[in-house]
């Protein structure tokens, strides 16, 4: 039986194995390639998307669990790249290789949605579930802070 859900405000129907992790449904079946595979066991955060507005690890989330859910991927955050977190990421030149950054951005945007003005420690704690092998951690933390200021305006 097909699983129906909404991805980036578009209704989609997935007639595939209901155990398929959302990550692979997005990448292999919906051609949304912005969400990245990093570990497959919810350890690195590269695959982070929003499910009903909450950041989730799509690599371990079967599509059967997202029936009727609203899913937002990096492509849907703001396709023009104008979301405060995206703007901050560009302004502070955060990416090195860039591979983990979709997950970092979705985590950061989720963090700020729930807590628009986090303390430095809340930023560090909120972002430390995401691995960046290039070591862009300082700029990630600064960019979350900058994005938080942009929300104020």
């Amino acid at each position: 039986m097909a699983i129906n859900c909404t991805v980036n405000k578009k209704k989609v129907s997935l007639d595939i194995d209901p155990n398929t992790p959302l990550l692979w449904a997005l990448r292999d079946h919906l051609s949304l390639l912005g969400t990245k595979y990093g570990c497959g066991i919810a350890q690195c955060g590269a695959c982070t998307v929003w499910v009903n507005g909450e950041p989730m690890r799509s690599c371990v989330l079967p599509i059967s669990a997202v029936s009727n859910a609203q899913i937002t991927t990096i492509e849907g955050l703001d396709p023009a790249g104008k979301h405060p977190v995206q703007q901050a990421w560009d302004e502070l030149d955060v990416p090195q290789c860039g591979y983990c950054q979709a997950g970092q951005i979705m985590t950061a945007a989720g963090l700020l949605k729930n807590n628009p003005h986090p303390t430095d420690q809340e930023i560090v704690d909120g972002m430390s579930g995401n691995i960046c092998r290039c070591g862009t951690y300082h700029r990630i933390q600064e960019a979350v802070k900058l994005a938080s200021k942009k929300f104020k305006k």
Partner: protein
Amino acid sequence: MKTSRRDFLQKTALFTGVFTLGFDWFSADASAMEVVGSAGRFNAFLSIDSLGKVILYSPNPEIGQGIKTAFPVVVAEELDVDWAQVQVEQANLDTKLFERQLTGGSGALKHSWERLRKAGATVRKMMMQAAADQWKVDVRTCKTAKGVVLGPAGQKATYGSLAEAAAKLPVPSELTYKDRKDYKIIGSRVKGVDNKNVITGKPLFGIDIRKPGMVFAQIVRPPFGASLKSFSAEDVKKMPGIIDVVSFKNKVAIVGENTYSILQARASLRCDYGSDAPLESTDTHQKWFDEGMKSDKAQVMRKDGDFTAAIATATKVIEATYECPFISHSPMEPMNFFADVKADSVLLAGPTQVPQPAQKAVSDLLKIPTDKIQVEISKMGGGFGRRLSNDFVLEAAELSSIIKKPVLVMWTREDDMTGGTYRPAVRYHFKAGIDASGNIVALYLRGVGLNAGNSTRQDNFPVGAIENVLIESIDQKSAVTTGPWRAPITNFLGFAEQAFLDEVAEAAGKDPIQMRLALLDKVKTKPVGKITYEPARFEEVIKQVAEKAQWKKKPGVHQGFSVYYSHLSYVAQVAEVKVENGKPKVTKVTAVTDCGEVVNLSGAENQVKGAIIDGMGHAMFAKLNFQAGVASPNNFNTYRMIRGNEVPVIDAHFVNNGIAPTGLGEPALPPTGGSIANAIYAATKKRHYKQPFN
């Protein structure tokens, strides 16, 4: 950087009004624009069309080191155009246009600096000549600014308007380069040219490649040293979404329609392996280290004076043994590659640091000439040296040739972490003798590496300052595959050398910084043997870091020092450790780097900070164990990567002395383990001899 619509309309008007007629420019896309201007590919690195669109081609693979931004910065500076006007494109493999189209050894800017400047300055001169001809003035009276030639009587002509005429001129032989005080782009903070695509989730990486008719595959590889005896394919082939199961070179490839089908099929696949010799374990490797240290078959890498005689006269002898394990590169994007092998042509696409050797290797494997093999270079989700090996390219090509389909071979994280070409495991033994005044009179080093090649760097400072030196290396062959890992060999040797010197300084009763400065003074006044580094540049980074970090002037803060020369750059570091709840915590690292001219300050800071975090994380946590030829751990739950809540403050400074730029992707890593270990010792009186520390 796309031309804005307004810009575009203005330039169209400058070129000719004709093209605006009967065409809705407001919906014009990039491909429509291509049709209009007659593109002038002035040289390998740049083209300017009649509309003034400047495209700069970056030939070297981008793995996160920022080369796709840094190269065009240099060309744009000498071309004298506004950075906002420039569009950057990744050039695919083209052996006729480019030399050294690879990423490795922190060598790209060192190699290409003059070429890039020349590429820009040549076209700037041609633009000036075209304008001078048009205005009938002496070219020496013309100037340029932001892509416009300025004449002596106030004339102005854009590069776009001059492009056609300039393209017909002979290439000038005499060029003038900008004075560095006039640099507008070089040395400024330039944002990554791919940022916009990264933050909006565009498909940029190898894993994102999609081609018509493409299938997916994963490959099950044998334990190191084992061979495939049999496997159960029939049931697996019948599973949903599975297209084929084939075997080659002791591997089993599962070909399918999508990733999840393949993952499920893998869980059902049974492979039986055998081996002629016992398979390796970590115990085997320890035994080999012990034997290597006792062996009389070491290769002498450097000999100055008479170490044996000198050590006998020493008043104090310091000895220490250091050891590092095999570790994985673990870039965030696991290995993957696309190949489409047809009878007489091949398309390769994906993340490789070495497209030309990849092309050659596939040519040798499939007996198809290189001119029939096209290589598209994708952006890479990290490399760290892993993508200097072409094992994954060859696998994809061989599989495509067997199944006769375009295929994207994907490695899981577990495949990536257990699939080899690791940083080699190495053990070092150091011995130093000091005389009554605390001077080092004799130095010995033996490195025993497992598939490490020469595990020493025999000319490294303080060699050159010591009269009696003996450096030896032994390489033990192992079935565990190895390859370059960010700052090959020095990523650990740097720690061992800098930790040992700290111990020697303590035994000699000297300050670690003063001891090094005295040794460098010796190199300047009375060098011993061949010297491969510049002592004055060493001194400068040391003095600057001592000042910036307030060396030994911060009460309650425990500091550790290191300094290293690698990839032609110099990096000095002071690490700081505080003891919290009885445990040492690295709170800050100050680094001063001499990489010559800083091309992009933003990118340079990223490289230094990233390399320090990389060096610290791997020194603290990374280790692979082996049992029956199989590596463990195999994923990030047990193979610890440093995280954002574990990084110290990093204060990165650059000497920026205007010398032609040298490497920056690697040089800040080798000194990191040493500065941190020395700071931990200052805080706890406990020395680390093995990595990982934890």
